[in-house]
């Protein structure tokens, strides 16, 4: 089947946005990079909206999109609700931050938004479980959807943190600021997320039966860019805090490429029970 780029970008971008907001929520409790909360949440909501718009480009009749609210059991309905809830939570969080609202309220909204973000990254893959396509019909597929966007979201968060820390303070001051952020949990999270992403990609792809050069090429890209690079960056960051921006940004880009490659694998390897009209979808 042809790669459905609108859906690939939708699931990758909204997943990144969701995991980016997970980091914002976690930092509400850790308090390691408070200055980054607002810009990180802004990036999260912008990426979520762009991702949502990407999904609309897949439709031939977006003018009838409100009809999607009429069938609550469909995967598209669940995705639409989850992305809506995520965007609302991030928007409310931004308002609370701007108005200097109480920490408790901020934490509560951030946690709820983070839950929606994680659920969205999983359910975007769950929508494809259908008996008509045997090598999609495994829980490994949505698990891979969830795991491949986690390093992208964490790296995106660290990129924002680095950008905020270095802003207006000069390069040297920026390095110092980055070094003093005590970000240890985040590089460790990036390392672990990179490992899990690679494992998730391998688990699904091998179970689905990658059988040609294109699938194996995408598999290599998804594992290396989406797993190995973030993993290495996570390992290097504690030793090279002055390179936070470069390592985080590179990890973010590579992890996003890896997440996209993983989603492409799904479209490349799918084989229906039968394709009797031999239709190209």
């Amino acid at each position: 089947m042809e790669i459905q780029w609108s859906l690939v970008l939708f699931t990758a971008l909204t997943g990144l946005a969701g995991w980016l907001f997970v980091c914002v929520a976690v930092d509400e409790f850790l308090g390691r990079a408070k200055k980054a909360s607002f810009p990180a949440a802004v990036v999260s909501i912008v990426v979520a909206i762009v991702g949502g718009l990407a999904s609309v480009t897949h439709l031939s009749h977006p003018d009838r999109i409100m009809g999607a609210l009429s069938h609550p059991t469909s995967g598209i309905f669940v995705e639409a609700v989850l992305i809506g809830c995520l965007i609302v939570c991030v928007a409310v969080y931004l308002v609370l931050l701007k108005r200097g609202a109480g920490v408790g309220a901020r934490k509560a909204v951030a946690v709820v938004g983070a839950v929606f973000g994680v659920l969205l990254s999983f359910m975007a893959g769950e929508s494809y479980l259908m008996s008509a396509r045997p090598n999609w019909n495994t829980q490994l597929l949505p698990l891979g959807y969830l795991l491949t966007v986690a390093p992208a979201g964490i790296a995106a968060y660290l990129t924002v943190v680095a950008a905020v820390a270095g802003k207006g303070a000069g390069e040297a001051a920026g390095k110092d600021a980055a070094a003093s952020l005590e970000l240890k949990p985040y590089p460790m999270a990036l390392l672990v997320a990179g490992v899990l992403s690679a494992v998730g990609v391998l688990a699904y792809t091998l179970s689905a039966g990658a059988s040609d050069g294109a699938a194996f090429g995408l598999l290599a890209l998804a594992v290396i860019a989406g797993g190995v690079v973030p993993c290495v960056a996570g390992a290097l960051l504690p030793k090279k805090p002055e390179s936070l921006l470069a390592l985080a940004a590179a990890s973010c880009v590579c992890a996003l490429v890896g997440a996209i490659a993983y989603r492409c694998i799904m479209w490349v390897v799918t084989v229906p029970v039968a394709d009797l009209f031999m239709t190209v979808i």
Partner: protein
Amino acid sequence: MSHYCLVVDLDRCFGCHACEVACKNENGIALGEYWNRVIQVGPHGTFPDLEQYWLPVQCQQCEDAPCVHVCPTGASYRDADGKVLVDKEKCIGCKYCMMACPYGVRSWNAAEKAVEKCTLCGHLTAAGEQPACVASCCASARFYGDLDDPESDVSKAIAAADASSVHSLKDVGNKPATRYILSKKIATWHDVDEISPASDSADPAWFAKEA
């Protein structure tokens, strides 16, 4: 609930494609798209012991239709008579139903930007006529009716056949209603996931010639 569907006697079908043409004419289906298609299955075996049959395929009117489950807008739905249909006015063109159909028997209407499929010629049957594919079948191999009505053409055709000769397309939980009658004396039944659809129109050069 009634259960309207088609029954095709493959012992009689000789692959003339008249049902395919009649369907396209009746429903104005674009070149390269189908609501009903005749698939050549075979030849199988070793010369001179060869088997071949023709398998006309269309929406199987599944009891547990996956297209209805995945449709986000209710455009794919089951009507009061139990028929699985498409309301093109509600279709947003997400094509999930096409992905979810185990047999790939849904079509994309590029002009209307909507998914469509066999309607069992509801506009004809409502007026007491037969679906176009049934009316045009010169081998009298196609039957239309309610499986739950023992007096219907489909029930009678199934009752007249040996139970071991009655088949359906591979069931992956969707419970296809359409039945195919193929007796061993004609050919061995092959599940759809075991066959490679073959027909003249599978050849891109054929399309180029046609265009």
